[in-house]
Structures are given as structure tokens and as C-alpha cells.
């Protein structure tokens, strides 16, 4: 009886200690992590192993296997482009959360935002993160543009990526601007009123553009729906396409610029 117990314990201990390595050799595990992954059995930390980590990974769509040494230094890019992209992802996640609780109608919008603070778990945190994240993204995109300028990183062959960047800046501002209206409080209403009045001064097309954007001559409930669709669907869709081209061009133009 006592012997049996010891034997059992031994077996349990053995299976517990060998479980991780067994799991890493299982068909399921190997089907998830492609050859070369550092999570697979047999990964070696060699130049070859390190190359395979990127080559056999979805990251290969964003990063080459090797990058210029100075580009890795935080002081070169300050990671500003990457952080702009990361903030965009954070905004997408928190934004989807907010969409579950928000109705873009004159009657419901304000009450829904108020309810985030009172009757939604993490509602305030999500709203705050979405709002400050948006402001931060405008800031990081702007700073990213400045860092690109000061490095002269827009010079051949990168001219057109700068132009794509300017479109990204415009899209970022438009995303922020359309989102600004959604809480439907006094701040939202009048800030957008002031902002769109400025746009309406544009010669020839000013009135038409403002009519299309506002869904009328003045802000109304129809504007709210229009801004909502622009904010949660149209503009994110467009900016993702431009970002894809932007990142692709960074690689095709020979990776990060420099060193100075």
C-alpha cells in the first residue's frame, strides 16, 4: 500500500515535470507555432534561429529579418511611428468596447455616455483611455512627422511616403474631429460648430463639402449619425489602407533612413 503510494507520487511528479516538453512536441503545439518559433522545442538562439523567428512569423509582414543597427536605437525614431500605430490599435479596442453602449441618435447619445460612468463596468476607464489615447495619437503623429523632417527622411527615395504621411495626418485629425461630436454635449456641439464653420469658408466647394459632412446646412441629429459612421467605419477603413501602404513603403524604400 505504502509502496503503491510512493510509486504513484513518483509517476505524478514525473508526468508533471515532463509535461511541458511533451506539450511542446505535441501535434497541436507544433501546428500553432511554425518552424523557427522560439516557443517550439529545439529552438536555438543562433543568428539562424533568430532569422527564422521573423521569417516564419506574421511579423514578417511588418519587419525584415534584419534592421540597421542605428534604427533600433530608441533615440533615432523615438518609436513615434510605431507608437502612433499602437495607439491606433488601442483606440480600436476601446472604441469597439464603447460601441456596445452607444447609440448615435440625438435622443440617446448623451445619456449613453453618461451611463458609461454609472452603469457600465470599466465604462469610465474605457472612455478615458479612448479620449486621451486619441489626443496622444494626434500628438505622436505630429511629433513623428517632425522627427521625420529633422532627419531629412523624406528625401529620395522616400518622398512619396511623406505624402502618404500627410494623408495619414489629415485622416488622424478627421478621426479625432468626428469623434469629438459623439458625446453630444455642449463641448462637442460647439467645438464642432466652430470647426466646421472654418471649413465652410473654403471657396467654391466650401458649402458643398460642409453640406455633405454635416448632412445639412447645420449640425443636427443627422450630422451625429453621419459623423458616427465616418468615425467608426469609413475613416478607420481608409486609414488602415494608407497605413498598410505607409509601412510597406518604409521597407521598399530601403528600411529606416539614416544614419545621419
Amino acid at each position, binding site marked *: 500500500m505504502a509502496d503503491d503510494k510512493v510509486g504513484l507520487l513518483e509517476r505524478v511528479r514525473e508526468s508533471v515535470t515532463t509535461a511541458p516538453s511533451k506539450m511542446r512536441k505535441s501535434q497541436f503545439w507544433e501546428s500553432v507555432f511554425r518552424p523557427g518559433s522560439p516557443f517550439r522545442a529545439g529552438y536555438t538562439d543562433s543568428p539562424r534561429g*533568430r532569422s527564422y523567428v521573423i521569417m516564419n512569423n506574421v511579423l514578417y509582414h511588418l519587419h525584415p529579418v534584419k534592421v540597421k543597427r542605428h534604427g533600433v536605437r530608441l533615440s533615432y525614431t523615438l*518609436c513615434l511611428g510605431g507608437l502612433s500605430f499602437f495607439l491606433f490599435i488601442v483606440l480600436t479596442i476601446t472604441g469597439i468596447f464603447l460601441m456596445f453602449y452607444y447609440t448615435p441618435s440625438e435622443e440617446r447619445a448623451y445619456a449613453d455616455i453618461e451611463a458609461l460612468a454609472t452603469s457600465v463596468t470599466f465604462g469610465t476607464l474605457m472612455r*478615458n*483611455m479612448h479620449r486621451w489615447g486619441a489626443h496622444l495619437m494626434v500628438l505622436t503623429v505630429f511629433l513623428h512627422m517632425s522627427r521625420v523632417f529633422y532627419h531629412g527622411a523624406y528625401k529620395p527615395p522616400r518622398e512619396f511616403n511623406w505624402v502618404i504621411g500627410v494623408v495619414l495626418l489629415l485622416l488622424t485629425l478627421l478621426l479625432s474631429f468626428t469623434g469629438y461630436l459623439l458625446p453630444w454635449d455642449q463641448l462637442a456641439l460647439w467645438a464642432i460648430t*466652430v470647426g466646421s464653420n472654418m471649413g465652410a469658408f473654403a471657396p467654391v466647394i466650401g458649402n458643398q463639402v460642409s453640406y455633405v459632412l454635416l448632412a445639412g446646412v447645420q449640425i443636427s441629429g443627422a450630422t451625429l449619425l453621419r459623423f458616427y459612421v465616418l468615425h467608426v467605419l469609413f475613416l478607420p477603413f481608409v486609414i488602415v489602407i494608407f497605413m498598410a501602404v505607409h509601412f510597406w513603403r518604409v521597407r521598399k524604400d530601403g528600411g529606416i533612413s*539614416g544614419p545621419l
Partner: protein
Amino acid sequence: MEELIAQAAAATGYPASMVERSAAARAKAEGTTIEAVLAGWAGVEVPTAAAAGAPGGAPDAAAPAQAAAPAGAMSLEDLAAAAAEESGMPAKLLMRSATAKAKAQGVAVEAVLAEMAGVPVPTIGAPAAAPAASTSAAPAAAAAPVMAPAPEGVRTQRLLTVVKSKAIQQVKTEPVDKVNTWPHLVAAEFVALMAMTAFLLVLSVIINAPLLEAANFNLTPNPSKAPWYFLGLQELLSYFDPQIAGVLIPGLIGLVGLGAIPYIDRNPATRPSERKFAIMMFTFFLMGAATLGIIGSFFRGPGFNFTYPWTDGVFFDDLLDWLE
């Protein structure tokens, strides 16, 4: 030794340092002394002191002589093994390539193998198997190895010219100093991402997003301000005609001008000291935008009139929660 090097250098026409290096390498490869090699190049007698130490005085000549004895009696297998040892290739592979070569040149396999092994070509087989080769191979075979050692003092190769690597290689990209993306870049990105997440979380916990009263079309707040990134423009509106401040400056200078920068700035330099004008202009633009934005945000009160934030308070509703 120095004297020998100098002599060899003079005879070969190479720099002394190179001669010394290559003599050392050759001596090691052939198992002789450096002096012997140098003497060979310089075309002088091998110094006696060195000769005593060297395995065979003049090894170039001695080694084949040693091997010559068994070579004639060697079987095909022995020859293949010897050739394999000499070249460091597997015997099987060697046999295949020797057969192919023999066939292509019309000589005996043994002759090819013997050449590879560096032993005298066996007399048997060669003339019989390859009549075509008999004129050239047979007379040589009897007396000397196929690759006869160079007589003392005769150089077997010489430098024709020194060619810079770029002249004969097509260099498409300059080599650059690179590091593996994994782990170097991925780690840096991860740190940046975590820091940003932490910062955003802290910000969101301590400052609440503003929410004023419900929208009311009949009640215009005073002042009415645009979102902060447009406050610089709103500030401009209080100086200029709306056609200029609302359209010309943001549209033409802000967007078209910004987008056209790479096509306007034709200076290829990227070093800051070589593009002072561009940097000055852009800094001027940034400073102007920042100044206007700060004035619009913090120095404008009711009626968008100028105020000091420290006397009349701040009229900047984005940070309402924090300002209270």
C-alpha cells in the same frame, strides 16, 4: 631570417610583410620550415642550420621521391585512398570524379588518381588504357610526377596585378551594420508599447474625460472653442479674414505645402549642418503653430478675448476635470 625575407621580397617583388606571412602559411601547409620556403623563393641555398631542422632539406623534391617507390605497385583502391587522404574528399566521390575526368581526357583512371594523390603516375595502365594520352603521359610517367616540383630558385607563379575588389565585383548595395530584428527591435518595441500603455492607463485613471451639459442649440457657450489641434487656426481667424485664416493657411500651407516639402527641398543632404535653411523654416513653422495653439487654448476667454490664465482662469474644456 630577416635577410632571407628581404631576399625573397626582392626576388618576388612583394612587400616583405606579405612574403613573410605567405611563407609561414606555406611552410605550415607543406610541413617544412619558413626558411626553406623563403630560400626557395629567394633562389639561394637553403641555410644549413634550417636544413638540418627541416624534415627533408628540400622537401619539394624529397616528398615525391619518398612516395615514388610504392606508387608503381599501388592498386586502384590504394591510389583512391591516398588521393582521398590528400584531398580530404570521400574516396567514393573521388573515384567518381576521377573516372569522369579520365574518360573526358582519355587517360587511365590510375593516372588521374595518382595526380590527385601527388604520387608518380604508375607505369602500368597508362599507355595501355589511353593510347591518345600515351605521347604526353608515358614519357613523363616513367621519370617524374605529373606535377613536377619546381626546380630550386624558379618561381612557379607570379603576381600579375593587384585588383581592387570593387573593380571585379558588381557591388549592388553597400554593406551596412545590421542587427537581427528578433530580439533587438522586437524587444525595444515591446518596451515602448508597455511604457505607452502604462502612461495611458495612469492618465485615464487620474483625469476624467470632460462631459458638459447635454447639447443645446439655443445656448451658445462663451467662449466657444474648436478642438485643441484646431485652436491655432481659430486663433488665426481672429487676426485675418476667414478666407485667409480658414482656407488659405490650413489648406495651402498646411496640407499642400506640407505634402510638397520633399519636392521643394531638393538638397540631398541629411546632416543638420548642411540643411540649416530647411531646419530653420520648419522650426519656424512648428513654433508658430505651437504659439498660436497655446494662445488659443490658454489665453483666450469669453468672446475669444485675450486673458491671462493666472488672473481669469483657463478656458480649456478638454482638461476640465484636471483643472478643477
